[in-house]
């Protein structure tokens, strides 16, 4: 274990980062207070997850209905795809700074900024997924006397689940990874370790990165499991 007087290593070590996650470490700039350790790591991981879920909810609330609607109508392709692509190019930090002047910094600002990152993949993939549903199935449903809403709910959406989930999973990874900038907008997430090299050392930076990666994997696996549950049996037979 390193003590305060030894210089911080130039490169982080994997072992050092793991140690940082479990045990508080000394820091040169805190006046003797230890930093890191399991309690702080858990606290920041929970905030990172909260921020991610909030932003994802907002993104879903906007992008999913819009994608379903435009996909079903077969209209607004330019809007859905164009908006989707434009959204990818939004610089998050600039957005946060811009909104800071209007609504201030904090959870609201951050949620909106991160949701904007999540909307494009969900919108585009939902739109494309619905459009790719076999038209004869839709015609058959219409022939059976289903209302347009029923067609979306019972035919198009279930058949588009794989594509919709691709969008949601991409959005989730985008959001959870970018939520590391939250400490620049008033909310302390795992980004505190990554942005605070002077305080936490290179091991702390790596520890933050590892935790974000683990969180992203955990979310990815959970969503994959959820997708399997929601996919209808008929679709599962075909290779996706």
């Amino acid at each position: 274990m390193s003590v305060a007087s030894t210089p911080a290593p130039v490169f982080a070590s994997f072992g050092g980062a793991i140690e940082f996650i479990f045990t508080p470490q000394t820091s040169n700039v805190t006046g003797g207070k230890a930093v890191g350790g399991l309690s702080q790591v858990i606290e920041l991981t929970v905030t990172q997850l909260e921020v991610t879920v909030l932003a994802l909810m907002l993104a879903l609330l906007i992008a999913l209905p819009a994608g379903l609607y435009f996909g079903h109508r077969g209209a607004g392709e330019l809007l859905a795809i164009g908006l989707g692509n434009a959204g990818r190019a939004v610089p998050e930090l600039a957005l946060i700074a811009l909104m800071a002047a209007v609504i201030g910094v904090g959870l609201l600002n951050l949620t909106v900024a991160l949701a904007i990152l999540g909307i494009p993949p969900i919108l585009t993939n939902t739109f494309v997924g619905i459009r790719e549903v076999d038209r004869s199935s839709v015609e058959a449903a219409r022939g059976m006397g289903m209302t347009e809403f029923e067609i979306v709910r019972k035919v198009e959406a279930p058949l588009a689940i794989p594509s919709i989930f691709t969008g949601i999973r991409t959005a989730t990874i985008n959001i959870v990874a970018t939520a590391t900038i939250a400490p620049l907008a008033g909310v302390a997430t795992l980004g505190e370790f990554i942005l605070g090299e002077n305080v936490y050392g290179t091991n702390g930076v790596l520890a933050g990165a590892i935790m974000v990666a683990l969180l992203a994997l955990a979310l990815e696996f959970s969503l994959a499991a959820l997708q399997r549950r929601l996919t209808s049996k008929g679709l599962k037979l075909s290779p996706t």
Partner: protein
Amino acid sequence: MRSEFTRLRAAVALLLALALSLGVVACGSSDNSSTSTEATATGSSLVTNPKNAKISLTIGSKNFPEQEILGEIYAQALKAVGYKVKTDLNLGSETVAHQAVKNGTISGYPEYASTALTSFFGFEPEDVPTNANAAYELAHEEFEKEGLVAFPPTPFASANAVGTTKKFAEEEGLKTISDLEGKSESMTLYGSPECRQRIDCLAGLEKYYGLKFKAFHPVDISLRYTVLEKGQADLSILFTTDPQLAAEKDKFVILKDDKHVFPAGNVIFVTKLSTFEKAGHDYENTILQVQTGLTLEVMQELDARVELEKQTPKEAAAAYLKSAGYVG
């Protein structure tokens, strides 16, 4: 079992790759190298020495405007006396800059003596001498042990400060940080993400002043005035060299640090001993010569050009060197 193991291995490999790529990003920097300046020495007080043309220098800086301006001033001046100069500004935190000068990625960079003492050499803020030369001597000694040389300090010093709006200070009767006692529990403080844990920031306010705040919120340092203007923050961590403090005197004030938690740091240029020996006397002399004009007022004015008037650090530095008569 077997497939689970393979999956685990794949996950670990993925993690490692991710961590590695992140490490590379963290150590890299936006590369502004091969900067050329319009400044050339034409019979002005900086004189070109043809012997210097054989020597290449890379001047670095940390990642905020004041640092980049200083980096540009030094780089342009050294170019004017004939050195081959590249810049590698916006390096990141002090830890990164310190490593970069130690491992030779950059030849040197400007550092605040107080930051060097507290961040690199384990000094408590209260042990940092208030006298600029005493702090410099101390830092010089410590740097020497690492094979580095620090040049004497600039006239101006910069420190963190607790700032607020003039209106709020008057309403609450705040002049010094000690005045916050008994009131801070209902106030919010905004500062850089690192501030929370730093002894020369929130940790020091808690330890030495015994203050507790309603909440501490981390923000990007570029938003330190925005949060005050928006009325979101009651208090915000500012820098004493901030141009806003000079330009908007009737809007923002800083509270006097009556217990000296925020040591003021004059800037000292840090370079490698071997570079110093190779580069000859012009290296140190040029840097010392061009920094003599850097008083608090001048530094605030230069910061204003970049932070308020949106000039580039390069333009601000060139204007300074010209108006001070160092280059023609």
